[in-house]
């Protein structure tokens, strides 16, 4: 008997294999998206760990503040005296300008020389990883030898070796390409654009000292810590020792605070939260599809079930046959889920590797993740089939075997809704009437479409929310001057000194304004947990609030020109729980009698600015003196003079100016943050493709089932001379009606999902950015139209079945 059920069920499956495979595939997309995306997160994390281990990335990095340097050996000596430091390497890291020729065209880009031990010694912290044929630079070469960072060399397709010019007129030989942990992911300078215009040169320390004209100097120390060492305590000792022994202030960064590391690790909570949300909706959609399908299948077997009951077969035996269909769907879903998961994972890996390149990239099968997804994917159709089957076997046999026109149809809303008067001819009303005839079935199909479109809406909107947030950031920074740039000085210089004045007087520069940026730790005093107040590291920028070129926008309050108030980003103010008029405590570097120290003061919040980055805070330039930095500047902002481009400015300032570390368009400064989200957007795009495919699959499945179920209706229409194309048009209209309602509901659900992600998930995962929810309606409209077109066109596929129908055979089909 069991074998008979199995054979019977397999025959059912053979008859409806298209629907079974389609639903299995729907589940597979849910399984695949969850498992595939989650696997990529795991792969990325595992590979990042191994790559960082292979190159001994630092646990702590100490940099001499404000462009200063110390004699080689002094930082190493300090490190050697502090408990908890395992290994350390001194470096000289300086910005420069790099010139080369690519295909005959001159290339002038921002460069960085990293002077370090490139010997390959096991003791080296933050070592380089050589690519392919690269060789290690010879320390004593007549012409300095360097390695070029891989991303730059790959982008410009540089030969294995060649020559470069740095600092205006110093020739160097590059002997291959390499990566180091800070540059696995380019998140500084121009963000991922840095692949093309950030040339990092890894050079022997002595060579770097020669090139930069700082013989015997270092300014950077990278360290690994002993297991269990207290990073905060080590940091304190480092800073104190450097201040007392060398009179310099050290900026210390942990590995976890390093932007490239943050980008590499990403935000597992954010990733997983989004993946879970998408997968959940897909599973729900697939569950409705399976439920709908199985309910229809059981309905089609109503008389057979009645007959079985009439001859005394036990209900538990009767339910086996349809239940086996559920199992078949589940098994197909699981098998295809692995395939889809791998397809998604490998597509996503392409996106990941495009953005970040890791020397070690492992892709082990994530059995646990797949097992979780497959368990859910298997349970969904089985549970979905159970409900209609159990419902069917509870009907009286006499009802089950009745002819359709005598079968009871009580209880549903169908008759009520169907009486809604409709315009048009009977054929035009038919699609709506058909939908209303079976409201439960319509509702389930509707929900399936709705879930898919909600995902599409949320993914597209999340992408546009990121883009909108970055656009707003750029608008705020650029004001009315889209070419505005910033010159980063390599140290603090007097405003009236030659370094700053040279920049201001440069013929390529106009509207130049000296300014200063200092890191500060800010705490709110008025709100929050008094024992554990919110502390944020902010970049306080001293700018002239009286400037006619640019000032921050005060969305609340007013800019405190000439007074000591601070202007906080909206996101920072919200995180602190403060508003205009409240006070914050600022701990900042101070220059006292020519020496750096730290100072703490209470400052009133004078205004709120709308830039999405929480990091940016502003004070009036006049207040720099209160911090001990009066008359000094470490940045100059300006716009290119008429007839000059940003490249001209870079060339001119690097060529002639002293003390210039970096020239950067302000539109590029936010690029790095934007690019760090590029991976998410790539994943969203892949997800969207699968969602559109899912919508098409469901639409196709629905149309196919409709054609099967309504074969007698269609035969009757043909018998009355209605052409096949008109029947297909009616089926399309039916799908379209559902699709339009699903689009509205999907939009609402999607918007709710977007709000949840933007207002709850993202602030937890990316606290530094205040997301501005933004929906690009035209993009949304196009996507929805594509989805609706897919739904409307779906009945064309089973149209062949209609054309080949043997009409008399269908007309005489008896229940």
């Amino acid at each position: 008997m069991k074998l008979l059920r199995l054979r019977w069920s397999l025959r059912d499956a053979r008859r409806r294999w298209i629907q079974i495979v389609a639903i299995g595939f729907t589940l597979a997309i849910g399984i695949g998206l969850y498992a595939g995306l989650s696997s990529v997160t795991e792969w990325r994390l595992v590979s990042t760990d191994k790559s960082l281990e292979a190159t001994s990335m630092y646990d702590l990095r100490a940099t001499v503040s404000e462009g200063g340097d110390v004699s080689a050996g002094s930082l190493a000596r300090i490190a050697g005296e502090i408990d908890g430091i395992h290994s350390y390497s001194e470096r000289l890291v300086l910005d420069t300008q790099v010139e080369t020729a690519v295909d005959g065209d001159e290339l002038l880009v921002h460069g960085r020389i990293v002077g370090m031990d490139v010997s390959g010694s096991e003791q080296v912290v933050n070592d380089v990883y050589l690519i392919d044929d690269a060789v290690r630079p010879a320390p004593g070469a007549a012409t300095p030898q360097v390695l070029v960072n891989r991303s730059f060399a790959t982008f410009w397709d540089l030969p294995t070796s060649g020559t470069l010019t740095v600092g205006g007129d110093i020739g160097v030989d590059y002997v291959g390409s390499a990566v180091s942990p800070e540059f696995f992911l380019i998140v500084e300078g121009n963000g991922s654009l840095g692949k093309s215009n950030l040339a990092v040169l890894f050079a022997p320390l002595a060579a770097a000292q020669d090139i930069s004209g700082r013989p015997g100097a270092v300014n950077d120390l990278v360290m690994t810590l002993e297991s269990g060492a207290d990073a905060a305590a080590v940091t304190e000792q480092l800073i104190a020792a450097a201040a007392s022994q060398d009179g310099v202030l050290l900026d210390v960064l942990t590995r976890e605070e390093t932007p490239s590391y943050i980008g590499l690790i990403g935000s597992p909570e954010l990733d997983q939260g989004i993946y879970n949300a998408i997968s959940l909706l897909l599973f729900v959609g697939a569950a409705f599809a399976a439920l709908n399908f199985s309910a229809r299948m059981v309905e089609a077997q109503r008389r057979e079930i009645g007959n079985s009951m009439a001859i005394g077969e036990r209900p538990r035996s009767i339910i086996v046959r349809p239940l086996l269909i559920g199992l078949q769907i589940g098994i197909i879903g699981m098998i295809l889920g692995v395939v889809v998961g791998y397809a998604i994972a490998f597509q996503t890996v392409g996106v990941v590797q495009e953005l970040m390149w890791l020397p070690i990239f492992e892709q082990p099968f994530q059995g646990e993740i797949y097992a979780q997804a497959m368990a859910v994917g298997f349970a969904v159709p089985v549970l979905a089939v159970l409900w209609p089957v159990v419902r069917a076997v509870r009907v009286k046999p006499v009802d089950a075997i009745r002819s359709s026109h005598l079968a009871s149809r009580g209880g549903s809303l169908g008759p009520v809704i169907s009486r809604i008067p409709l315009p048009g001819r009977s054929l035009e009303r038919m699609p709506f009437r058909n939908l209303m005839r079976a409201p439960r079935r319509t509702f389930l199909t509707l929900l399936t479409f709705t879930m898919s479109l909600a995902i599409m809406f949320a993914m597209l909107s999340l992408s546009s929310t990121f883009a909108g947030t970055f656009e707003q950031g750029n608008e705020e920074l650029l004001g009315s001057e889209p070419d505005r740039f910033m010159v980063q000085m390599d140290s603090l210089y007097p405003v009236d000194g030659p370094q700053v004045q040279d920049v201001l007087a440069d013929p390529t520069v106009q509207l130049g304004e000296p300014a200063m940026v200092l890191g500060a730790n800010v705490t709110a005093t008025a709100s929050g947990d008094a024992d554990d107040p919110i502390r944020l590291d902010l970049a306080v920028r001293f700018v002239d609030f009286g400037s006619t070129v640019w000032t921050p926008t005060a969305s609340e309050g007013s800019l405190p020109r000439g007074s000591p108030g601070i202007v906080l980003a909206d996101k920072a103010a919200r995180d602190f729980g403060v508003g205009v008029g409240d006070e914050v405590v600022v701990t900042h570097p101070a220059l006292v009698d020519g020496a750096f120290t730290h100072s703490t003061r209470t400052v009133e919040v004078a205004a709120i600015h709308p830039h999405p980055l929480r990091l940016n805070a502003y004070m009036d330039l006049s207040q720099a003196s209160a911090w001990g930095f009066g008359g000094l500047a470490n940045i100059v902002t300006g716009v290119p003079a008429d007839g000059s481009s940003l490249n001209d400015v870079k060339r001119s300032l690097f060529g002639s100016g002293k003390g210039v570390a970096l020239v950067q368009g302000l539109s590029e400064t936010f690029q790095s943050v934007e690019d760090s989200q590029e991976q998410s957007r790539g994943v969203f795009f892949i997800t969207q493709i699968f969602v559109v495919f899912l919508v098409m699959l469901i639409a196709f499945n629905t149309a196919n089932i409709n054609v099967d179920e309504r074969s007698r209706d269609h035969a009757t229409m043909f018998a009355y001379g209605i052409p096949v194309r008109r029947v297909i048009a009616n089926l399309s209209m039916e799908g379209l009606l559902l699709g339009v309602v699903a689009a509205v509901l999907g939009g609402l659900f999607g918007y709710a999902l977007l709000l949840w992600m933007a207002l709850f998930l993202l602030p937890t995962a990316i606290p530094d950015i205040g997301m501005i929810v933004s929906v690009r309606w035209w993009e949304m409209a196009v996507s929805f139209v594509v989805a609706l077109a897919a739904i409307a066109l779906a009945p064309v596929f089973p149209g062949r079945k209609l054309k080949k129908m043997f009409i008399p055979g269908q007309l005489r089909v008896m229940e």
Partner: protein
Amino acid sequence: MIDLEGVTKHYEVGPVMVTALAGIDLHVDTGEFVVVLGASGSGKTTTLNIIGALDVPSSGKVTVGGRDLTTSSRSELFALRRETVSFIFQSFNLFPGLTATENVEFGMDVSGKSGSASPADILDSVGLGHRLGHFPHELSGGEQQRVAIARALATGNPVLLADEPTGELDFKTGAQILKLLAEQANQDRAVLVVTHNREISRMADRVVEMSSGQIISDGPPEGGKTPLSELHW
């Protein structure tokens, strides 16, 4: 109105060739109420399907309403079904999503003929003036068949083809349906009813009896046309 000349129909059922019609000749005029009588497998429904352009003969000539179906294109056959013939089925085949009125409107819409009678009038004429807004599943079998007849009448087509129209109905209801069909012949329609019920054939103008794909008799019912009130089954 209907002419069949030497019509044959063969079906391939696996390796076996089955002859459904073995060369039949039939002529039906407007105003005739003809019953095609025969046991299961005699070829009566195949004949009806060929007349209604639902199936094509293997050989022979079929003319309906002056149109030669054997040389007509697919679209011409569709047009014939819209404009010339109307079907009434054993299982009614009403559209479950449409009300009684809308099912009748469907008949009007497809033929494109807007007669003087409204769907409500037509339903009233078949005794269903009180069930206009009901859906098929809210109607009894007899009522559903009357809606099906009303739908066929609404097309205004000159040929009515009914396949076992009383097959799912009790005697009383079936008699009402036959009365309705007989009345249509009086309104200048050719009405062809297929049945295996010999009793029904007694009320026809003419009975065509079939067996094994051949017409074995064609003429008035045995014993003459009998009033409906004297029929029993």
